[in-house]
């Protein structure tokens, strides 16, 4: 049984890497690539919300920053999309004939690969540090992150001359290594890349949530001011995890952008950032497996429902969220691990019965 549990992650990885590409058509495989990309964002939110208790409603900022970073590089390096001055054509629509200065470094692929996670991390670190050092907590933290999201949304949405405004940057028609980014071959590679990065993101989150650092995060969630009286300053802990979560969201946004074919200010819409939180709640917060399940299941459901009944998805999502919060407060994963699945089977009379009572010496039931 233990060996089996050890093998599970490898089996899942093998399925994702070899079986899914063989079993699914290009369109479906691409969708799964996107779900796995979004799972990285869900992991990041779990790190800050599930473990540390920081409910950020602004992770879309970092997600979109990662997406814009990769899209800017791809646009610059695609000759077919260049206008007269050798810069992306859309600039001509707004009478811009010189590349804005901050686009310049994005010519470099190396810079871009670093910027995808360092820029969101830097923004998150700075914003987080300012919020945390001023002891802004709870609902106020959520409101501030949402307000920051709105600021970023309006900035990107309104700046046609800098980012093509509301149109966003289309990556599907750009080229990489001489191939169209939107081509099926490229998309399979992006899928594989996502499948390999997701476990890495998982390991990063596990590094921060296990051990004594992880204990301190849980202590912050349980009773932050009490932790101060034990001699710990919560500010660096919170800043570090918020920064790491920002970096993960940036990587997630970049992977999502190249697979969905566009990055636009819609990635910084209020509803999208709230959806990210819903994925984590549905999957099970405070566990690292839960958010991956949540992001994949919710987005897969979204695809299925949207294909069948395009109008119905938002109602289904709302119902799903209420259902989970009321009936599965620990999310899908928490429900399974706490024996929910057995009660479910028991309802149909096919559950295995417990062999004996739980052993008292092992369960250590607290007594007065």
């Amino acid at each position, binding site marked *: 049984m233990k060996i089996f549990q050890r093998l599970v992650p490898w089996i899942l990885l093998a399925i994702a890497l070899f079986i899914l590409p063989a079993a699914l058509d290009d369109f479906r495989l691409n969708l799964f690539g996107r779900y796995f990309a979004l799972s990285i964002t869900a992991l990041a939110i779990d790190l800050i919300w599930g473990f540390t208790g920081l409910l950020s409603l602004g992770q879309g900022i970092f997600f979109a920053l990662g997406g814009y970073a990769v899209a800017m590089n791809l646009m610059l390096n695609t000759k077919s999309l260049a206008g007269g001055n050798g810069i992306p054509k859309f600039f001509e629509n707004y009478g811009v004939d010189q590349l804005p200065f901050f686009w310049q470094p994005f010519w470099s692929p190396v810079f871009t690969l670093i910027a995808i996670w360092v820029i969101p991390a830097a923004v998150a670190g700075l914003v987080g540090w300012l919020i945390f050092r001023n002891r802004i907590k709870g609902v106020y933290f959520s409101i501030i992150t949402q307000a920051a999201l709105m600021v970023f949304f309006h900035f990107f949405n309104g700046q046609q001359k800098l980012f093509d405004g509301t149109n966003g940057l289309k990556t599907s028609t750009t080229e990489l290594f001489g191939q169209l980014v939107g081509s099926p071959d490229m998309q399979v590679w992006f899928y594989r890349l996502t499948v390999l990065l997701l476990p890495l993101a998982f390991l990063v989150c596990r590094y921060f949530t296990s051990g004594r650092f992880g204990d301190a995060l849980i202590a912050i969630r349980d009773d932050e001011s009490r932790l101060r009286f034990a001699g710990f*300053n919560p500010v660096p802990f919170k800043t570090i995890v918020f920064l790491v979560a920002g970096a993960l969201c940036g990587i997630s946004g970049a992977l999502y952008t190249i697979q969905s074919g566009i990055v636009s200010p819609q990635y910084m819409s209020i509803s999208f950032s709230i959806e990210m939180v819903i994925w984590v709640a549905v999957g099970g917060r405070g566990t690292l497996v839960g958010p991956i399940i949540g992001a994949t299941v919710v987005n897969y459901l979204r695809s299925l429902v949207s294909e069948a009944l395009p109008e119905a998805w938002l109602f289904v999502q709302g119902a799903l969220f209420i259902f989970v919060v009321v009936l599965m407060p620990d999310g899908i994963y928490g429900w399974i691990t706490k024996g929910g699945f057995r009660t479910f089977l028991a309802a149909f009379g096919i559950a295995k019965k417990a062999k004996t009572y739980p052993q008292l010496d092992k369960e250590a039931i607290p007594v007065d």
Partner: protein
Amino acid sequence: MSMSEPLLELNDVSVSFDGFYALTDLSLKLYKGELKSIIGPNGAGKTTFLDVITGKVRPTKGTVTFKGKSLLGVSEQQISRDGIGRKFQTPRVFENLTVLRNLELSASPEKNAFSLLGSGLPQSSKDEVHRIMNYVGLTPFATVKAGSLSHGQKQWLAIASLVAQAPEVLLLDEPVAGLTDEETLRTAELIKSLAGDHTVVVIEHDMEFIRDLGFDVTVLHQGQVLTEGPLDKVKSDPRVIEVYLGPPEQ
């Protein structure tokens, strides 16, 4: 530092919350190794007194010094690192950490975020944690989440966490509230065992417990020191009887 110099000194400290004075010109000295019980009616300013020392509340007026250094404007975590530890009135433990993890976190000599990444607790601290956990009888519950402990066990975990933190000055706010008589006796033993190396301040309403501790008593009333001295002398003070103890039962 000479013997006559106090370890902790409050001088003319006033704390006002929107015009209501929780402490009024309170002056109090605490010497190294001193053991003190503080009693007083509700609203006398006992908890605010601890809040001022531990950096939770900044006094409106007056000075607070520890080892000759001002504590005004110093953060809670720095005051804790400097050696002043506190147990809160309601037992505050980290509910989603196990008993062992609660104690290990408090016992950690490293308080810096980066030093907690990747490194384990030093063996000496681990041994100390097990010794304390054993002393308060929580060893069978080492792997139980603190949130599922009973009230009394949480009280002990809170006290044990404070001891694990190894402060020089221990401030205990109602350490035996909600404990059984036997637990109260054992808590008194634990606190008395700390005497010698530690400076201890206990706030309590349980007069039996105060008698058991045998510390000198300070009575607070309306944010000021009403009187100080051994318990028997304080108990017979007519002012203390009037504001706090009430007339002796017939």
